Structure formats: C-alpha cells, structure tokens
C-alpha cells in the first residue's frame, strides 16, 4: 500500500496579506480556502475532507468547517507545529488512496502581528505538559532553543556563522522578486553576521519574519485531477517523524528529518540527486543546515559547507531552495511555515514560480516541514512531488 500516484495537488493559494488587521482568523482560513478552490477549478461543495492544525480556533477543525459550511467525510487536526501541513498532505493522500475522500482541503492562517498590536495573546494547545516544571523556569524561547542546537552543531562540526548566513543570503536573493515578501532587500553574509545577536549564536537576520496571512492546498483523487484544467502535481511519497528528548539522551545536531526523509524517498523511489527544487523549512538558518544533512543532500556535519557560496540560489547553486524567499524573507504566517513550503514547490513543478527563480525542467521537488524546537521536541514532515501529466 502506498500513496505514490494515488493523489494530486490540484489547488494552492497563499494569502497576499502580511498584516491582517481588520480580519479574523476564521476569515483568513476561509479566504485561503476560497483562493485554493478557485485555483483548482473546484467549488466548496466538492470538498469532502478537511485538514488543519492548532492555528484553527475551536475543537479540531469542526468550528472552522462550520464557519465555511463544509460537509465532510474525513477530518484531521494533526498538530506538529509548523510542519503540520506537510503531514496533512500525506494524511489526505492516504485517505484518498483508501477511498475515504476525494477532495481534501488543508488550511493554515493566523495574525501574530495584528494580535500583538491588539494585545491578544493566543496560543494553541491544551494543559501543561509533563515536562513543564523542568523547563519553564529556565526561560526557553524559540530563539534560544534553536540557538542551543546551532551552538552544538558549531561545536561538533565546525559550522560557522558565515556559513549559516549564506542560507539567509540565498533566501534574500529569491525574495527580491516576490512582491508580497516582508523583506525584499538582498543581503550579504556581512549584513547577517553584523546584525545584532538575539540568542547566541543567532543574529536577527538568522531568524524568520513574523507575518500574518496563511495558505491553502487542495489534494484530490486522480480521477478528479484528470477533469481539471490545470496539470496536477502528483504525490510521490511522504514521511513523518516526531523527535523528542529521549529520556535525557539529548542530541540537538539532527532533526526528525533523519527519519522522515528516508521514508519519503523510499516511497517515492527517488534519491536526493533527483530533486530539482527543495522547499526546506527555514524558521532559522540553522534549521536549513541540519535538515539538508538529515535529508541526505550532504553528509552530517557538511551542511555549512553545502549552503555556502550561493549553493541554494536558483540559477547559481546546485540545490535551488525556497524560491519565494521562504520564512526568512517572505512569509511565516501564524508563526508556522509548512504550508508555504508545499505551495512554492507546487509553483515550481507547474512552472509558475517567478521567471527569475523558476528552475528549468523542474520535474521532481521536495517540501520539508519542521515544527516545534529543532532537535529537541519537534515534528518533521517530508513530501516528494512530481510534475503531473494528468
């Protein structure tokens, strides 16, 4: 049993807003759903499955399904942070492959900037987890937790701040062509390493943007894809893996991609050498370096060298990545970037990326999501897709 060839991505939409004052979160979810349906050439009533994560208000996806007036045969609110939406494509493909639905909608939306301005504090999640008393008092933040992963990676492998900076430099080269990107200025390695340290060793420009908005994806059965005007993007394989602190046997130098990647490549029947374009979750520059190693694009510890000298810049390097500008420059809606990773990979496979960053003959692409805290308590999701001829 496999999802290979059993499901197609038929519709995508990224909300153009980066500052959603005056809009509600349910409204943003509905707007991106509408955009993806129009992109696919489908209507709301075609949807029979809905996938969402903790950014949706209410009990799982039920309240949002009510808002949007959906009548469903399948609902799934798998929550692994920013990678959730990559896992949702996998779950939707599984449900389609086993006949439980035909048209699946996935949405992400949020407004952290507008919420901050309105002094609204919203955090998804239930009660205090078991480890809380052992961590909360020591003031872990997203940045110092990723910082600790980067510090250890530097210690073990000699990775440098300049190497990390190349990830941001590449993202900025792509973002200059994206009219919606939060940051469109091309930056240099010097710009990154001279920006202020937030938490050692991460500078301000090693961090992703904070932005409002969202995105949506429509996954459909092959027989639906054949009826649509647009060429669908074929799902080839997927893998997912949570990673945690393993009872105190801590290793922050690798991510769950070490496990989700091989599963996805095996199911797809391809290798890293076959990937023409990669969307790699880029909450921070170190996220990209560790993920590329774990996915097998280079050996463990070689990620710093791999990303250097523009190797991730489209038209320059060997592995064009995040050609929308990624989370580092374009968009990280609701503090989660997984859905935009899939969306830009689909644009590349359709040949619809900006002409300055479009990868020629882009037939196979990968999208990888990293949720939670790199190396410590996190969820990884890998998705491999092929340009469809359906």
């Amino acid at each position: 049993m496999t999802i290979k060839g059993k499901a197609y991505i038929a519709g995508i939409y990224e909300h153009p807003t980066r500052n959603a004052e005056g809009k509600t979160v349910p409204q943003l979810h509905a707007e991106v759903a509408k955009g993806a349906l129009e992109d696919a050439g489908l209507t709301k009533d075609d949807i029979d499955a809905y996938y969402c994560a903790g950014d949706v208000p209410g009990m799982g996806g039920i309240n949002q399904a009510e808002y949007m007036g959906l009548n469903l045969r399948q609902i799934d609110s798998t929550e692994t942070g920013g990678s959730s939406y990559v896992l949702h494509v996998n779950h939707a493909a599984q449900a389609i492959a086993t006949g439980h639905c035909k048209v699946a909608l996935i949405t992400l939306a949020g407004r952290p900037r507008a919420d901050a301005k309105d002094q609204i504090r919203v955090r998804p999640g239930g009660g205090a987890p078991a480890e809380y008393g052992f961590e909360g008092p020591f003031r872990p933040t997203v940045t110092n937790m990723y910082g600790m992963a980067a510090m250890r990676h530097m210690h073990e492998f000699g990775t440098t701040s300049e190497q990390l900076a190349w990830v941001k430099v590449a993202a900025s080269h792509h973002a200059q062509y994206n009219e919606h990107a939060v940051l469109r200025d091309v930056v240099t390695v010097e710009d990154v390493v001279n920006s202020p340290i937030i938490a050692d060793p991460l500078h301000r420009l090693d961090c992703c943007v904070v932005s409002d908005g969202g995105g949506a994806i429509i996954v459909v059965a092959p027989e639906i894809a054949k009826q649509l005007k647009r060429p669908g993007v074929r799902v080839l394989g997927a893998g997912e893996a949570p990673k945690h602190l393993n009872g105190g046997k801590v290793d922050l130098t690798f991510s769950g991609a070490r496990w989700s990647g091989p599963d996805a490549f095996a199911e797809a029947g391809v290798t890293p050498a076959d990937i023409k374009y990669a969307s790699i979750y880029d909450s921070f520059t170190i996220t990209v370096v560790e993920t590329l190693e774990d996915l097998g694009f280079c050996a463990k510890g070689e990620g710093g060298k791999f990303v250097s000298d523009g190797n991730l810049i489209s038209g320059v390097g060997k592995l064009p990545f995040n050609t929308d500008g990624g989370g580092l420059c374009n968009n990280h809606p609701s503090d989660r970037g997984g859905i935009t990773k899939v969306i830009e990979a689909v644009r590349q496979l359709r040949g619809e990326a900006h002409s300055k960053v479009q990868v020629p003959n882009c037939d196979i692409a990968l999208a990888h999501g990293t949720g939670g805290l790199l190396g410590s308590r996190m969820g990884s999701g890998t998705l491999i897709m092929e340009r469809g001829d359906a």
Partner: protein
Amino acid sequence: MSEKPNSKPQVRAPRVNHETKPFWDATAEGKLLVKKCNDCGENHFYPRSLCPFCFSDNTEFLECSGKGVIYTYSVTRRTKEPWAIAYVTLEEGPTMMTNLINCDFDNLSIGQAVEVAFVDTGEGTALPFFQPA
C-alpha cells in the same frame, strides 16, 4: 560585549505534581535527583513513573553528584538582563535543561565542567541552576 556575572537569576517556582513532588522536595534539601530504572538500569530525566526506555514501572529516584558538563548553551542577549539557557549532561547520564549562573557569559564553553547551584524559590522548592565547577 561583556556581561556582569549573573548572580541574581530570575527565579520562577516550578509547577509540582504528585509524580514530580519527590524531585522538588529534594531540591529544598539541596539534592538533585534523576529517575533510575531497576529493570533496564537506565537513568532518565525528567523523572517519570514509567521508564521511557523499557516501560517498566519499577523506577526509583537516584541522588546525583550534582556535577556535569555543558552539552550546549545560548545566551539571550537582546533583553535588559541577559540569561544563559543550557543543557547540562550529568555524571549519571541524563542531560537536563537549566540556566548557567555565577559566570561570565562571554567565557562559557561546551564541555565545561559545571555543578548544581540551587536557588530557593521561597515556595518550598529550589531551582537547579548550574555554575562553573
């Protein structure tokens, strides 16, 4: 950039429940505990009733030496009072989250020897910070 020795760490009392009360009670006496499994012999942290390695419920608390080495750390600097979060690997095996105190934030290093330095929360518990040994 130089920081003053962080001699007055921010102290937030931990949440205590029935599963972790023995750990926090011991902190008030200056003792650092991990959990030991009597079946597979592995030590783990944070302490649980069931061993996360073999799922045995035959676990007990083990008093540690309080000595360890810095596995990794990060100084949060864009704030009025910087602090150093760290993972410290204990002599007994497990690695735990903590803050490094009584130290120069610009002269820390991975692999450095550290020892536990309890700070009273005023609520019947103490937080296991670490300082250079």
